[in-house]
C-alpha cells in the first residue's frame, strides 16, 4: 500500500485493463528496447501486473533531482492523474482553544493540501459536569458539612479530571474520603436536576434520580474490603492454623463415634452368628403373652448388652444419649435405617420402632392400643428414655396389639357361635337374646380379664421401673 502511495499509483489496478488491451497486440510484434529478447521472454512475454518503469524512459529522466518532478514524470508515463507528495506543513486543531500551530508531515495530493479539522480532534471528549450559579447554591445546595469554596473546588476538579474521583480526592485541599466527595457531588447534581426540571416526570428517568448514591453502604463495603486486603500473611497463617486445628478436632470426634458404632455393629453380627439361640428365645418370649406372665423378670436388657457395654463403656460415657445399641427385637429395616445415622436420639428411635411395630395394624387399632395404654396409666411416650424403658414400652405395645387381635378373633368366633345358636332358637326373640347377650358378655369378659391381668402386670412393672 505504502509503496503504491510513494509511486503515486492507484490503490486498485484500474488502469490495468486498458494497459492489457493496448499491450498484447504491441508485444507480440516486437520486444521493448533495452533488454534482450531472451530476458524478456523469461518474463513470459507479457507485461507484469505491476507495471515496471520503462528503462528507456527512466534514463532520460535520470538527471531530475526534484522528487516532485520525478513523481510527476512517472505519473505522466503511466498516464495516471494523481500525484502524491509529502510536505511538512503547519496544522491547527479544533480541540485547542488557542491558535498554536505545530508542524507535521502531510500527504498532499495534486498540490492541494488536505482540508478539514485535525484528524485526532474528534477524540477530545469530556464529561458533562453540571454547573450552578451562586443563587442556585444559596437556594438548594447549602449543606452544614460543606462550605461553598469546597463545593466549588470539588466541581472544578471534577471537570478537570473527568469525574475520576480517586484523583479528585488526591488533589483536594482538605482530606475528604472518596465516598464523601461522591456523595456531595451526586446529591448536588440531583438537587440541581430536580430544581431545574420542568416537572418531576422529566427527570425521574435520569440515573442520578433513579439510583441515588448510598453513602453508608459504600463506607461499609470499603471497610470490609480494606479488612480483607489488610490482613497480613501472619494473621492469615494463624487463621489457617486455627481452622485446621478445629477441623482436626471435629474429625477425631466423628472418627471416635464411628469407631464405637462400628464396633457395636461388629459385635452384634458376631453374636448373631455365634449364638442364635439367645435371640430365638427372646423372640418367642416377646410374642407369647402367657410366657410373659410367667416370667416376671423381663428381658430388660438384651443379653448382648452387658458385653457391649463392657467393651465400649469408656467412649460410651460422654455420649449417654447419643449412641443406641439397636434393640434386637426390632425389625431389621428399622435397625438398618438407624444404623445409617451415626447419632440419633432415643425418642426418634422409639418412634421409628413404634411405627414399625404398628405398621401391620390399622389406624383404629393403634388408637385402641393407645387407649388401652392410657387406661393402664402408662404414658403414650415414656418420660424417661433409657434402654430398659424403651424396650419395655415397645414390648407392652406389642402385647396390647396381640391382645386386641386375639380379642377381635374371639369376638368373631363368638358371633359365629351365637349366630348358630340363634339359628336354632327361632320363637323367643326377647328374653333368650337378652340372656345370650349377657352370656356373650360374660364369655367375652373372661378372656379380657385374663389378658388384662397379664397386661396389668406388665404395666405395673413398667410404672415401677419408671418410678425408680
Amino acid at each position, binding site marked *: 500500500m505504502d509503496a503504491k502511495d510513494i509511486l503515486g499509483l492507484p490503490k486498485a489496478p484500474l488502469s490495468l485493463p486498458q494497459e492489457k488491451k493496448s499491450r498484447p497486440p504491441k508485444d507480440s510484434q516486437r520486444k521493448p528496447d533495452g533488454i534482450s529478447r531472451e530476458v524478456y521472454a523469461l518474463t513470459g512475454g507479457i507485461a507484469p501486473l505491476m507495471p515496471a518503469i520503462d528503462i528507456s524512459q527512466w534514463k532520460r529522466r535520470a538527471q531530475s533531482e526534484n522528487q516532485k518532478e520525478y513523481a510527476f514524470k512517472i505519473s505522466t508515463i503511466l498516464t495516471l492523474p494523481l500525484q502524491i507528495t509529502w510536505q511538512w506543513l503547519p496544522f491547527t486543531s479544533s480541540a485547542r482553544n*488557542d491558535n*498554536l*500551530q*505545530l508542524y*507535521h508531515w502531510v500527504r498532499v495530493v495534486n498540490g492541494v493540501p488536505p482540508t478539514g479539522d485535525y484528524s485526532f480532534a474528534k477524540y477530545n471528549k469530556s464529561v458533562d459536569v453540571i454547573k450552578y450559579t451562586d443563587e442556585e447554591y444559596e437556594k438548594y445546595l447549602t449543606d452544614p458539612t460543606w462550605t461553598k469554596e469546597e463545593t466549588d473546588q470539588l466541581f472544578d476538579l471534577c471537570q478537570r479530571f473527568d469525574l*475520576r474521583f*480517586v*484523583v479528585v480526592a488526591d488533589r483536594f485541599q482538605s482530606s475528604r474520603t472518596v465516598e464523601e466527595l461522591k456523595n456531595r457531588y451526586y446529591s448536588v447534581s440531583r438537587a440541581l436536576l430536580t430544581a431545574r426540571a420542568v416537572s418531576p416526570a422529566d427527570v425521574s428517568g435520569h440515573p442520578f434520580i433513579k439510583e441515588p448514591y448510598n453513602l453508608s453502604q459504600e463506607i461499609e463495603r470499603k471497610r470490609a474490603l480494606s479488612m480483607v*486486603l489488610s490482613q497480613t500473611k501472619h494473621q492469615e497463617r494463624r487463621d489457617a492454623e486455627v481452622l485446621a486445628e478445629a477441623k482436626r478436632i471435629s474429625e477425631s470426634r466423628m472418627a471416635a463415634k464411628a469407631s464405637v458404632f462400628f464396633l457395636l455393629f461388629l459385635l452384634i453380627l458376631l453374636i448373631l452368628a455365634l449364638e442364635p439361640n439367645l435371640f430365638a428365645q427372646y423372640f418367642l418370649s416377646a410374642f407369647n403373652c402367657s410366657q410373659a406372665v410367667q416370667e416376671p423378670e423381663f428381658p430388660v436388657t438384651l443379653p448382648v448388652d452387658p458385653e457391649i457395654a463392657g467393651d465400649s463403656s469408656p467412649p460410651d460415657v460422654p455420649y449417654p444419649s447419643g449412641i443406641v445399641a439397636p434393640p434386637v427385637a426390632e425389625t431389621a429395616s428399622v435397625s438398618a435405617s438407624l444404623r445409617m445415622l451415626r447419632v440419633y436420639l432415643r425418642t426418634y428411635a422409639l418412634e421409628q420402632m413404634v411405627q414399625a411395630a404398628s405398621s401391620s395394624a390399622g389406624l383404629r387399632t393403634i388408637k385402641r392400643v393407645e387407649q388401652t395404654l392410657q387406661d393402664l396409666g402408662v404414658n403414650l411416650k415414656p418420660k424417661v428414655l433409657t434402654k430398659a424403658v424403651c424396650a419395655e414400652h415397645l414390648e407392652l405395645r406389642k402385647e396390647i396389639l396381640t391382645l386386641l387381635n386375639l380379642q377381635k378373633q374371639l369376638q368373631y368366633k363368638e358371633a359365629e357361635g351365637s349366630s348358630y345358636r340363634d339359628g336354632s332358637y327361632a320363637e323367643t326373640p326377647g328374653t333368650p337374646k337378652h340372656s345370650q347377650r349377657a352370656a356373650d358378655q360374660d364369655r367375652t369378659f373372661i378372656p379380657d380379664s385374663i389378658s388384662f391381668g397379664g397386661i396389668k402386670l406388665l404395666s405395673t412393672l413398667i410404672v415401677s421401673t419408671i418410678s425408680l
Partner: protein
Amino acid sequence: MYGGDEVSAIVLDLGSHTCKAGYAGEDAPKAVFPSVVGSLDQMEVDEPDEPEKNSGAVLDTKSKGKRKLYVGSQALGFRRDYMEVLSAMKDGVVKFLLHLHLHLHTVRVLAVDTLVPSASVLKKDRPRFRDLGECLLVDPKEHPMLLAEPSSNTQQQREKAAEIMFEKYQVPALFLAKNAVLTSFASGRATSLVVDSGGGSTTIAPVHDGYVLQKAVATSPIGGEFLTDCLIKSLESKGLTIKPRYSFKRKEIRPGEFQTVDLYLPDTTESYKLYSQRVIASDIKECVCRAPDTPYDESSYSNIPMTPYELPDGQTIEIGADRFKIPDVLFNPSLVQTIPGMESYAETASSARGLPQMVIESINKCDVDIRRELFSSVLLAGGTASMQQLKERLEKDLLEESPQAARVKVLASGNATERRFSVWIGGSILASLGSFQQMWFSKSEYEEHGAAYIQRKCP
C-alpha cells in the same frame, strides 16, 4: 502507527545521575550524559580561545568573572586544573537547566543557567541570556518540548521551569510530565505502582488513570549513588583504594606487560577526584553486585567465594560479601551502620525504610478500590532497578508482606537499557501521539494566563 503523529517534539529527562534527551517518536534517547558540570573559574578575563579545549564549553557570564562550564562525559573525562565538579541536581531539584544542542548524530550540551541559585552564586546575579545562536544547531523555537519532572515537584519549581523555557528559549509549546506517569505509559498501562530507583533517590508513586496520586508518593534518599558511596567506603575499610583514571599512566615495558606510573597532579580538586572514583566504583557495582535472595546477614555470607575485578590501573581486587551486602541496603537501610565510614549517613538511613515496606505503605495510602490493581502491576524503573535479581527479590518480599487476597506481580522490561530509559521512552510515546497534540501548553497561553496556568494544563 495509527495513533501517532510526529511533530518533532524534543523529550528531555533530567535525572539526578544522567540526563537523557532526544526526539519524540524514537525508541531511545540520542543524548545521554551525566548531570554534572565541570566548572572552571577563570581568573583572567580574556583568555585566548583554544577551540579544542573549549569544545563543549560555554562561557557563563556572571558579574564576578567568567566561569567556564564543561558538560558531557567527554569534556568531563579530560582533567583540568582547578576544575570543580558540581552536581547539576540538588535533592532532586534541577539546578542547572542543560540546554540541548542536537547535532545530527552526536549531542553536545551547553549548560546555561541556574534555576535555583546555589550558595556559590550570588543572589543578586540575574541569569543573563547570552546569544548562543552561533552554537545552536537546533532552534528551540521550532520544537515543542516535553520535560520529565520528579513526581513530587512543587508548584514553584514548575512555574520556574515554564518561565525559563518560554522566556529564554522561546519554545512554541511545553509540557511537564511526571516521571511515574511516563514510566507507566512506557509499559502500556494507565494504572500502576511505579518504583523508580535512580541515581539520587528512590521514589514510589502510584499512578491511577494517568495521574499521580500525590498523597501516596513515598521517597527515600537511598539511590544508586548512595550505594556507590557505600561500596567505596567498604573497599577503603578493607584497604583497597580506587585510583582515579587520571592519576596514573600505564607504560608498556615489554610486549603484553604494563607498568603503572603514578602521576603527581596537585592541582586537581577533591570533587574531581571523588567524581572519577565514583565512575570506577559504579562500574564495579554494575558488574559485580547482585541482590541477595534472602535478607543479608554476616554469618551466612562470610564464606562466599570472591569475585575478581580488574581496576583500570591493573590491580585486581576480590569482592566477596559486599556483592550482596550493598544491594541489600535498598531493602534494609540499617545495614549502612555496619559499613565503616558511613556513619555520617546513619541518620538519613535510619529514617528511610526498606523498599517492600515503602511499597506496602504507599499502596495502603490509596483508596481501597484500586489497591488490587496496584498490587498486580508494580513497575520497576531507573538505573538501579536494572541490578540483577532485584525484581525477584522484591517480588518475594512483597508476597510475604501483602495480603492473600491481592495477587502481587512485579513487572520490569527485560532489557536493562529500557529500564534505565523508561521515563524517556514514555515521554517519546506521549509526545508523538495524535491525541496529545491538544494538550501542549503553548506560548500564547503562557502569555495570556501566566506561568501559574501550568498547574491546570499539566496535571
